[in-house]
C-alpha cells in the first residue's frame, strides 16, 4: 500500500471507500453531549488539575512574580471560535499560561484557552500525562479545526513553534519565520477570526544563553537550553523564572469574509505575513515604551 505522507497543511486525505451522506456542517449537531459527572473533557482536560495549578503556581506568577498588565482584552471575542496568535519564547515558555490566565482573570466572559503544543510532548513520559490535563492539545490541523469550527473555542497557536523557544537571548523579540501559514489556513477554513497577541517580558524572565546539542540527544528532549537556573537546579530549575514585568497586548481581530478561500495559497501567505508584521510592530512599540525590564 502506498503510504500517504501527511503534510502539516492538509487535514484530509482521501481514502478509497469513503462515501459521505452528510455534509460536514451537519455534523456539528452531533457533537457528544457534556456528562456533568465527568471531571475530564474529551480532550483530556481536567478541571481538578487545571484548577489546582491555576490557584497556586499560575496565580503566584501572574499576580506577584510577573505582575502582568493586560491591554486590549476586549479584542478577544466572548463567543464563537477564535484563533489567538502570539510570539513565543522561554525555555519552558511562560507566555502561554499567562495569556490563558489573562483571559480567565480580565475578560468579562472568562473562557478556557486551548494551547497547541508539539506532538513531541505526547510521546514524552510525564508531559504526556500532564499537558492535556492543563489544556494543551497537539498542534494537528484536525484538532485546531475541530476546536475552532465544531466546538467554537479559543485556541492559541505559536506559529514560530520550536524556533521561537530555541532562540537565544541575543535574538530576543525578533520573530522567527511563521511556519508555512498553516494557522491562517486553519482559521479561514473554520471561519474564525485571528486575534494577534504580543507578550513582552517572557524573553527576559527565561533567557536562554546556549543550546547544548549533545545533551539534547541524550535526554531525548526537544532542546537542551542553558538558562540562569537550568540545568544546575534540575528540572524544577525550568520554573526558575526571573521576575521580569509582563505586558500582554491583544490586537484587533482579523476577520475573514465568505469569499476567502483557504486553498488560495497566495492569500494565506499574505495574511500570515500581515499578522507577523503586526505583532512585530507592536512588540517594538511596547519595548520602546518600556522604561525598565523589571518594573515596566
Amino acid at each position, binding site marked *: *500500500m502506498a*503510504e*500517504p505522507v*501527511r503534510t502539516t497543511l492538509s*487535514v*484530509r*486525505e*482521501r*481514502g*478509497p*471507500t*469513503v*462515501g*459521505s*451522506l*452528510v455534509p460536514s456542517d*451537519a*455534523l456539528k*449537531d*452531533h*457533537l*457528544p*453531549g*457534556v*456528562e456533568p*459527572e*465527568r*471531571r*475530564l473533557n*474529551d*480532550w*483530556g482536560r*481536567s478541571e481538578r488539575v487545571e484548577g489546582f495549578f491555576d490557584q497556586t503556581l499560575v496565580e503566584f506568577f501572574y499576580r506577584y512574580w510577573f505582575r502582568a498588565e493586560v491591554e486590549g482584552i476586549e479584542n478577544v471575542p466572548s463567543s464563537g471560535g477564535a484563533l489567538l496568535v502570539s510570539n513565543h519564547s522561554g525555555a519552558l515558555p511562560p507566555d502561554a499560561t499567562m495569556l490563558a490566565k489573562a483571559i480567565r482573570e480580565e475578560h468579562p466572559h472568562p473562557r478556557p484557552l486551548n494551547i497547541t503544543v508539539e*506532538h*513531541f510532548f*505526547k*510521546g*514524552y*513520559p*510525564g*508531559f*504526556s*500525562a500532564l499537558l*492535556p*490535563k492543563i489544556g494543551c*492539545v*497537539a498542534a*494537528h*490541523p*484536525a*484538532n485546531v479545526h*475541530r476546536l475552532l469550527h465544531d466546538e467554537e473555542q479559543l485556541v492559541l497557536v505559536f506559529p514560530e513553534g520550536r524556533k521561537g523557544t530555541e532562540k537565544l537571548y541575543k535574538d530576543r523579540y525578533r520573530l522567527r519565520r511563521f511556519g508555512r501559514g498553516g494557522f491562517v489556513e486553519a482559521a479561514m477554513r473554520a471561519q474564525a477570526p485571528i486575534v494577534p497577541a504580543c507578550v513582552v517580558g517572557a524573553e527576559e524572565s527565561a533567557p536562554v544563553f546556549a543550546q547544548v546539542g549533545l545533551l539534547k540527544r541524550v535526554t531525548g528532549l526537544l532542546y537542551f537550553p542553558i538558562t540562569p537556573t537550568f540545568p544546575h537546579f534540575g528540572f524544577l530549575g525550568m520554573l526558575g523564572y526571573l521576575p521580569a514585568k509582563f505586558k500582554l497586548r491583544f490586537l484587533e481581530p482579523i476577520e475573514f469574509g465568505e469569499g476567502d478561500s483557504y486553498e488560495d495559497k497566495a492569500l494565506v501567505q499574505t495574511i500570515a505575513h500581515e499578522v507577523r508584521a503586526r505583532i512585530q510592530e507592536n512588540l517594538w512599540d511596547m519595548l520602546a515604551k518600556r522604561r525598565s525590564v523589571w518594573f515596566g
Partner: protein
Amino acid sequence: MTAVRKQPARPDARDSRRILVTGLSTYWGGRLAQALEAFPEVEAVIGVDNEEPSVELERAEYVKVGAQHALLRRVVEAAEIDTVVDTRLVVDSNTTSSSKAHENNVIGTMNILAACGGPDSPVRKVVFKSSTHYYGCEQDDPAFFDETMRRPHPPRTPIERDIVEAEASLGEFAERNPEATVTVLRFANVLGRDVRTSHIDLFSLPAVPMILGFDPRYQFVHEDDVFHALEHAVRNRTPGVFNVAGDGVLALSEVAGLLGKPYAPVLPPWGTGIAAAALRRVGVRIPPEAMNQLRYGRGVDNRRYKAAGFHYTHTSREAVLKLGEHMRLHPVVRGAKERYTYEREVEEFLRWSPHVRRSGSSQAAALSRDQIADLQRLLAAAGNEDDGGPSEEDRLAAAEESARQAEQAAAKATERAKKAERRAAEAALKATERAKKAERRARQAAEDAVERASRAAQVPAQQESPPRQPVDHYDELAAEEVIALLASLERNDLGALRDYEREHANRARVISAIDSVLARG
C-alpha cells in the same frame, strides 16, 4: 445531551431479506443472527463459520465452512443471498496466533468478497465489521480520527496490518461493484458482559496497569451498541465507512476510577517491551496493538454514523460503569447460567423434522427471550410501584398487561407457524421447479450433443477447432467445483470434458477424477 437532530433512518428501498452472517460462532455473529431472525421480513438467516455456533438460534441455519471460506460462492448463489454481514475479523492478537489471524482476516476477507462480487451475484449489500485499530496509535495522531483520515504511519503490528489490508480489499470491492452497498464499521474497544477482549482482561486485574508518565485517551463502545450498529447497517442504506464508538473519550486514569480500582504505573516508559514480556511470564498478556494504545491512546469522531440515523445506548463512561458492575457481580453469579452447546442432530431435528409441531399452544408456552424480558420488566415495574403503597389495582393492571402480552405472543407464534408452513410449501414448489428446469437443461444438452455430433460428421475440417466448453462458465470453476459437478454429467459429456480439460487447464486432479468416474461407469 446536546440537541440531536432526529434524522429518519433511511429504510433500504431494496430490503435485506436473505442474509448471510459470517463468523456465526463468534460472539458478534451469533448475537447478530439472533437479532436478525426476530424480524419477520427477514426470510433467511444463514450463518457460516468453521466452528459451531455458541448461542441458541431459532431459525438461522448454520453451515460449516473452512477457515478460508473458499466455497462460499456456492452457498451465496444457492440461497440467493442479498446481504452479507462479515463479523469475523480478528482484532485482538491474544485470541489466536498471528498466522491464523492473517489467514482469517486477509485471505478470508478476500474469499468472502470474491464470493459476493461479479455482475451475476445476487449480493447487493456487504457490511463489514472492522476496528479503529485501522488508524493505529502514534505520537502525531489527531485527537479525533475521522473516517476520511488515513493513519499517519504504516502499521507496525500484525493485526493492524491485517485490518488495513482487509479494508483495502473492501475498497477495491466497492469500486468494482458500484451497484452494491458497502458499509464498513470501525469499532472502538468493546466493553461488555459477555465479550472477552484483552482490554477487559487488563481491567479485570486488581489494578489497572499503565505506562509510567502516560495517561492515554480511550474510547469504548458497549457490546449492545456493536450489534445494534451492525443491525442498523443491515436494515438501512448506509454506504461508506463509519466509526462506531460511544460518546466521550476517557483518560485511562478516569477509567480506573470508574471501575473503582487503583491504577498501577508498573510499565516503564523506556524498555516497555521487555517489561511486557516479563508480565507475560506471570500471566498478564498485553498484545502489541494494545501496547501502543496504552502509550498514546486514541479518540475517534463518531458523528458520521449518528448523522446516518444511529443512536447509541451507552456512552464510553456508561460502558465502563456497566463493566464495573458486571465485574463486581461476576464472582457471585458465575456458573449460574448454563452454557449453550450446539448439537447438530438436535438442531436439524428441530428445523426440518416433519414431526416437530409448531402449533400455537405449544409456542405460546415458550415465550421468546425478548418477551420474557419484557414481562420481567413489567413485573419489576409493578413491584416497584407497590413499594410506595401496595395497591391492588396496579397489580391487577400489571397482571392484565402481562396476560395481554402472553396473548400477543401466542398470536405471534401462530403467525410464525403459519409462515413456516408457507415456507415449506414454497420450498416444495421451488424444488419441483428446479427439477423441471434440470430436466429441460438435460434435454437441451442432449440435443446439443446430437447437433454437435452431426455437425462434426458434416464438417470434418472443423475437427481442428478447440472443443466447446462442456459446461457453462467452465473456465471460471475451481478444481474442487468441477469435481463436485462430475457425478451429475453424462458419459459423453464426461469424455468431452476430459478432452477440453486436457486442451486447456490440464489439471491433473480434474483429469484423474474424470477418469475415475468413467471407470466406475
